[in-house]
């Protein structure tokens, strides 16, 4: 069983190597990519079942036991997030492959895309599974290095500007993370998370607060928490649709996962954290209000992404089992729905030739299926019952209301931010799908895959998007069993004992 835990990291990295070797055959690359991600999804599902039945599955890398050696741990939370992330990655890969086939034909191979895509998947898997702080840093670096290449591939002048902002911000946060690790090691003499949870507890309170704040700042940059979010709406919209979908679905959620893991395991608190509550409320409102001001569809979705990071922070800020469980449920729901929305946005912009909302119109008559594909995730994001967004928000609101007055107030902000999301989405719907049909803009540069409006779309692109919509509907349908799993995960996270005993034995 412990071999299985290493597979989600090993398979994609081996796959990346194979796609470099086989870079002459486009078909082989596609086959490797899809096969690797499909196998990893199955492995993640097995891990989830095993972790749910018998507790965390631990692999000791190199055969050294826990405080000395590096461990990979799959508990309920990480296995669940790994499963949903891999499913989304798989769908996005199908979409990206098909976009490439539509634009360039079946036989052109890409030397960079497939290896980098699989490396990104490696980094994400490692970040979910790793059991120590320094491996988390390495996981972030693998993931971010891959994302730098994806976001600056085939640059032109405007794209290199946003790419530079993204790379520099991410590098700065990585160096801050490294500094945090140095401080943590100097104070405790270990980087193993399970070991840290006992050793940090005996440090002076001031030092504990300093270390906790440093981790919040570091992961807050990666998760796009509000005072540190400015890079996201600037850089994400400039990447091609599948890349943006992947980033929006996975990268920020890995930041949230790291926050969730470190704050509950290493810096636990007895009562709701005032700092995180304020930050969560600000993130929700700033993101939602920012979204209302946008005319660019992708920028609007990016601001909504920032807003919904606030929802996840809120669950963490409540700091009890129900709140953390709500965050876990929300992350699962949001990974699928945000990726879907960016893929649909890609389909819309390919059809209309623009990302400017006021240049679109009347799409509902011409492309009714696209209208449905947009409507379902849009309503899910806003949290209309009976979608998965409603289930997740309900869990957060219940946790907030139960935890006391201050959290109940912020829970009110959750409602307001949801209404603002709904308003933004309805506005997009009216402008894009109703009204008079406008002529599609001519294709600006057909040779550039990143440019919007290549007009041609094919069925697998729709199928991949529809598949993600189906996953999000399945989350809503399986809300009962899923929320019981996240509920148990929340109890585990606050209890800390299952994780620590499984790792340290």
């Amino acid at each position, binding site marked *: 069983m412990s071999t299985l835990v290493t597979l989600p990291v090993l398979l994609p990295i081996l796959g990346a190597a194979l796609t470099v070797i086989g870079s002459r055959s486009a078909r082989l690359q596609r086959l490797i990519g899809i096969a690797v991600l499909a196998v990893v999804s199955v492995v993640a599902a097995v891990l989830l079942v095993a972790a749910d039945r018998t507790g965390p599955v631990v692999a000791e890398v190199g055969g050294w036991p826990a405080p000395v050696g590096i461990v990979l741990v799959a508990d309920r939370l990480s296995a669940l997030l790994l499963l949903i992330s891999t499913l989304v990655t798989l769908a996005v890969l199908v979409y990206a492959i098909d976009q490439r086939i539509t634009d360039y034909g079946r036989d052109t191979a890409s030397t960079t895309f497939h290896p980098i895509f699989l490396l990104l998947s490696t980094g994400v898997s490692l970040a979910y599974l790793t059991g120590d702080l320094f491996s988390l840093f390495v996981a972030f670096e693998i993931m971010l*290095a891959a994302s730098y290449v994806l976001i600056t591939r085939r*640059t*032109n002048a*405007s794209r290199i500007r946003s790419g530079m902002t993204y790379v520099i911000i991410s590098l700065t946060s990585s160096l801050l993370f490294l500094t945090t690790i140095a401080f943590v090691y*100097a104070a405790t003499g270990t980087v193993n998370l399970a070991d840290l949870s006992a050793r940090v507890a005996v440090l002076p309170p001031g030092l504990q607060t300093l270390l906790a704040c440093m981790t919040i700042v570091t992961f807050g940059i990666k998760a796009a928490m509000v005072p540190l979010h400015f890079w996201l709406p600037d850089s994400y919209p400039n990447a091609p649709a599948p890349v943006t979908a992947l980033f929006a679905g996975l990268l920020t959620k890995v930041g949230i996962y790291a926050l969730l893991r470190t704050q509950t395991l290493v810096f636990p608190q007895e009562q709701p954290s005032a700092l995180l509550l304020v930050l969560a409320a600000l993130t929700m409102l700033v993101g939602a209000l920012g979204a209302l001001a946008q005319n660019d569809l992708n920028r609007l979705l990016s601001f909504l992404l920032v807003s919904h990071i606030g929802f996840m922070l809120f669950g963490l800020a409540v700091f009890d089992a129900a709140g953390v469980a709500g965050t876990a449920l929300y992350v699962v729901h949001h990974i699928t729905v945000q990726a879907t929305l960016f893929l649909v946005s890609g389909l819309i912009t390919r059809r209309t030739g623009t990302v400017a909302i006021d240049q679109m119109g009347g799409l509902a008559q011409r492309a009714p299926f696209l209208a449905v594909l947009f409507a379902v995730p849009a309503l899910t994001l806003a949290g209309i019952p009976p979608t998965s967004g409603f289930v997740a928000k309900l869990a957060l609101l219940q946790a907030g209301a139960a935890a006391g007055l201050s959290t109940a107030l912020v829970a009110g902000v959750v409602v307001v931010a949801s209404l603002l999301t709904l308003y933004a989405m309805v506005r997009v719907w009216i402008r894009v799908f109703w009204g008079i049909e406008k002529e599609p803009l001519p294709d600006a540069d057909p040779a550039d895959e990143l*440019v919007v409006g290549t007009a041609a779309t094919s069925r697998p692109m729709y199928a991949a998007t529809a598949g993600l919509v189906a996953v999000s509907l399945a989350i809503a349908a399986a809300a009962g069993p899923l929320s019981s799993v996240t509920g148990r995960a929340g109890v585990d996270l606050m209890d800390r004992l299952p994780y620590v005993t499984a790792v340290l034995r």
Partner: protein
Amino acid sequence: MTLNLGMTIVLAVLYSVGFYLLLQRSLMRILIGIVVLGHGANLLLQLAGGPPARAPVLGTAPPELFADPLPQALALTAIVITFAMTTYLLALGYRSWVLVGHDEVQDDVEDRRIAERERPEGSMSDDTADTGTDDDEDPGSAAASSEPAATGGRR
């Protein structure tokens, strides 16, 4: 754990110089800032393990005379990563220099639009002449920018 005063001063200097350079506009200075900051972080990792001592792999000294091997391993990994990222940033800076002709980090597009809106009408044309050139050069970003019609109309 005790800290060497000299090393602490070196660390403080590295971090302040690094952050100062990071706040500059030229990509080359930012890059040097990141390199300096990376050195600072790696040195901090080294110092986190305690004072220097004998190599942990060889020798037969008593355990307290050996250096802590873990921070050395961590710093080594971090150095490799910082090195790779520096090379990547260099490549990016070169690309920016080829495409744009300078390596200044530009303002946010939205910021520029707001600044244009606040400026009196007469100075608008001057503004597009110098800051708008890099965007208007290529057809791709005209479609990608949020106001394709307005961009096209100005030219």
